[in-house]
C-alpha cells in the first residue's frame, strides 16, 4: 500500500519545505543566517527531548515523565550548588537520581507490566512532587556563583554555532549510533515491532525496556541541563506546562509511529525543524498566543490522523494500554 503513497516522513518534509519556502519569500528577515541559527537554537532543547521520546516510542512505549526528568535532576544540581556543594558532586548526584528514576520507570513497565502511559504519568508526578516537597526551596532555582563556567553548556557559541544546537547535534549522533549501530538498538526496534516475537526469538526484552527508560531519563536530564544553562535558572514549574505535548508533537510529526518499531533520529530532526519553522515564523509575524496554540493544535491533529491512516492499527499491533 505504501508504494502508492508518500509516507509520513515525506509528507512532513514536504510541509516543512513549503512552509519554509513561503516564509522565505513573504517574511522579511526569515531567511537570514542569524535567524536560521535562532530558529534551531529555540527548538534545540525540544529536539533533544524528542530524541528521548523517540527511543521509547520506537520500543512501543511512551514516557510522560520526561519533563520531570528534565526539571528535577538539573534543578537539584542548581539547588545543591546554591547550598554550597561542589559542582561535580551535584552533577553526580543528579545523574544517579536520573538513573534510579529511569530504573523505576523501566521496572514498572517491563517487570510489573504497568502500561507505560500510566506508569510514567504516575512516576513523573512522583518525581516532580518529590522535587517540590523535599529538594527545592523555591520553584525557580536560580544560578549561583558555584555554577560559573557551566553556563557554557547552553550559552555562547562553538565555532560560530550556538552551543545548544551543537548539543542537539551531539545528542542526535549518540542516539543514531545507539539505534542503528548497536545490538541494543536493533533489539529496541524488534521489541517495538512485535514484542512477543522479540521475546520468542530470545531477545532479553525486559532488560532492554528498562534500558530504554534509563536512557530516555538521562537524555531528559541532559536537555534540562542545557536548558538551565541557557536561561541561567531552572524553572521547575515547567513540569506543569504543556511541553510534553510539544515533545510528542515532534515525534509524531516526524513520522515515528506511536505503534512502535518505526522511525529514527532523522524523523526527530524533521519534526523539530517543522515545529521550529512554525514557531519562528509565527513569532516574527507577531501572531497572538491563542492563534499560535490553534495552529499547533490543528497541525498535531493532522499529524495524528495521518499517522493512523499510514500506520493502521490491527489486532496484531494494538494492545490494551497502548496509545
Amino acid at each position: 500500500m505504501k508504494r502508492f503513497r508518500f509516507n509520513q516522513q515525506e509528507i512532513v518534509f514536504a510541509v516543512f519545505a513549503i512552509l519554509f519556502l513561503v516564509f522565505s519569500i513573504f517574511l522579511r528577515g526569515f531567511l537570514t543566517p542569524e535567524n536560521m541559527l535562532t530558529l534551531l537554537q529555540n527548538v534545540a532543547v525540544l529536539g533533544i527531548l524528542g530524541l528521548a521520546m523517540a527511543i521509547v516510542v520506537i520500543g512501543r512505549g511512551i514516557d510522560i515523565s520526561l519533563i520531570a526528568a528534565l526539571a528535577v535532576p538539573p534543578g537539584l544540581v542548581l539547588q545543591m550548588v546554591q547550598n554550597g556543594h561542589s559542582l561535580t558532586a551535584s552533577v553526580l548526584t543528579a545523574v544517579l537520581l536520573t538513573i534510579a528514576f529511569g530504573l523505576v520507570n523501566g521496572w514498572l513497565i517491563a517487570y510489573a507490566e504497568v502500561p507505560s502511559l500510566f506508569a510514567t504519568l504516575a512516576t513523573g508526578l512522583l518525581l516532580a512532587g518529590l522535587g517540590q516537597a523535599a529538594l527545592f526551596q523555591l520553584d525557580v532555582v536560580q544560578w549561583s556563583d558555584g555554577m560559573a563556567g557551566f553556563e557554557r553548556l547552553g550559552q555562547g557559541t562553538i565555532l560560530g554555532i550556538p552551543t545548544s544546537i551543537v548539543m542537539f547535534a551531539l545528542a542526535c549522533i549518540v542516539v543514531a549510533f545507539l539505534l542503528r549501530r548497536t545490538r541494543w538498538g536493533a533489539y529496541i526496534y524488534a521489541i517495538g515491532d512485535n514484542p512477543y516475537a522479540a521475546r520468542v526469538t530470545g531477545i532479553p526484552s525486559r532488560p532492554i525496556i528498562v534500558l530504554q527508560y534509563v536512557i530516555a531519563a538521562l537524555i531528559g536530564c541532559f536537555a534540562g541541563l542545557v536548558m538551565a544553562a541557557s536561561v541561567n535558572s531552572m524553572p521547575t514549574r515547567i513540569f506543569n506546562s504543556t511541553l510534553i505535548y510539544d515533545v510528542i508533537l515532534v515525534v509524531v510529526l516526524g513520522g515515528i509511529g506511536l505503534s512502535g518499531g518505526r522511525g529514527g533520529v532523522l524523523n526527530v530532526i524533521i519534526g523539530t525543524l517543522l515545529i521550529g519553522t512554525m514557531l519562528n515564523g509565527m513569532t516574527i509575524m507577531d501572531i497572538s498566543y491563542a492563534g499560535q496554540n490553534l495552529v499547533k493544535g490543528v497541525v498535531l491533529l493532522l499529524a495524528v490522523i495521518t499517522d493512523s491512516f499510514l500506520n493502521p492499527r490491527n489486532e496484531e499491533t494494538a494492545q490494551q494500554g497502548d496509545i
Partner: protein
Amino acid sequence: MKRVVSSAKVIVAALGLAAIAAPALAQQGLDEPFQKPFKEALAGKTVAYVPVAMNFDLTEGWYAGMKKELEPYGVKFEIRDPNWNTNAGAQAVTSLISEKPAVMIIHNPDVQTYAKLLQRAENEGIYVIQINMGSAYRSSAFVGANWIEIGERDTDAVVKSCQGKSNKIAIVQGALSAAASAYTLKGVENVLAKHPEIKVVSSQAADWDAAKAKAITQTVLKQNPDLCGIVGFWDGMDIGTAAAVKEAGLTGKVFVATSGGGERKGACELVKSGAFDLNLSYDVPTQAADLAAMIKWLLSSGAKAGSVKGSAYTTLVPITKENADSATACWNLSDLKK
C-alpha cells in the same frame, strides 16, 4: 575610704526612697483597656491561606511573614496548596467555607473563578483578604501591587531610555488568562497612547516561562537588532528575556524593565549583573506585614465580614543599579523564615 562610705550612704538613701515611692507609682499604673480584647480576638483564630501555589518566592514570603507576625498571638494557619490548579483552588475555597476559618487569605488565579465563592464566604462571616491578584468581587481587604502602575512605570522607563534611539520596543507578557498580566498590559497601553512615536515590534505571551521568553526575545532581536527596550511582566520569566539580550551582546543597549517580589537572587543580583535595568519590586515582606496588619485590624474590630471594604496597594520599590547593592532593597526568604 570616705568615698566608699558616702556612696554606700547614697545607695541606701536611694533604696529607701525607692521603697517609699514604689507602691505609689504602682498605684498610678494604668490598665490599657484595648489590649486584652485584642489578644482575645486573635487567640486561637484560624487563618486559611490559599495561594495559587506554594514553593515560590511570593507565596512562601507572604506565609513566612504572616506567621512571624501572628503566631505569637496564638493564630493558627492552614495552607491549601492548589499547585497552579484552578479547580483544586476553587475546591479548597469551597471546603474552607464550611470549615469557617476566621480569615481567608486568597491569591486569585484569575478574576472570575473565585469571585462568587469569596462573596459566599463573607456572607458566612469569614473575612476575605485578597493578595496581589484580586478577583471581580471586592472583599474586606485587598493587599497587593497595582499592576496598572507597574505597567505604566516600566513602560515609562523603557520609553525614556528609547529617546533618540530607534523607538522600537518589545513586550513580553505573562499568561493571557492571568489578571496580573492583563492589568499590566493596560498600564503599558496607557503610556504608549501618549507616545505614538514608539513602535511595538512584538507583544507576545511567554506563559511566565523563561525558556519561552528567551526564544521569543531571540527571534525579535534578530529581526530588530536596533531594539531599544523590552517591557517584561515578571522577573522570574524575564531571566530568559535577559539571557537572550545578553547572548545577542546587547546588554546595556536594550533596556530591560520588569517586576517581581524583590527576592534577592531573582531581583537585586540580576539588576547588579546588568540583566535587568529596572525591576519594580512589590516588596514581599512589606506585603506580608500589610496582610498581618489587616488580619489584626479586622479580627479586633469585630466588624461584620464584608461590611467594610478597603485596599492597601503596595508602594513599589524600583530596583536599579543604584540601590541593588543595598541591604534593604531586596529580601531573603531564609531571613524572613527566621
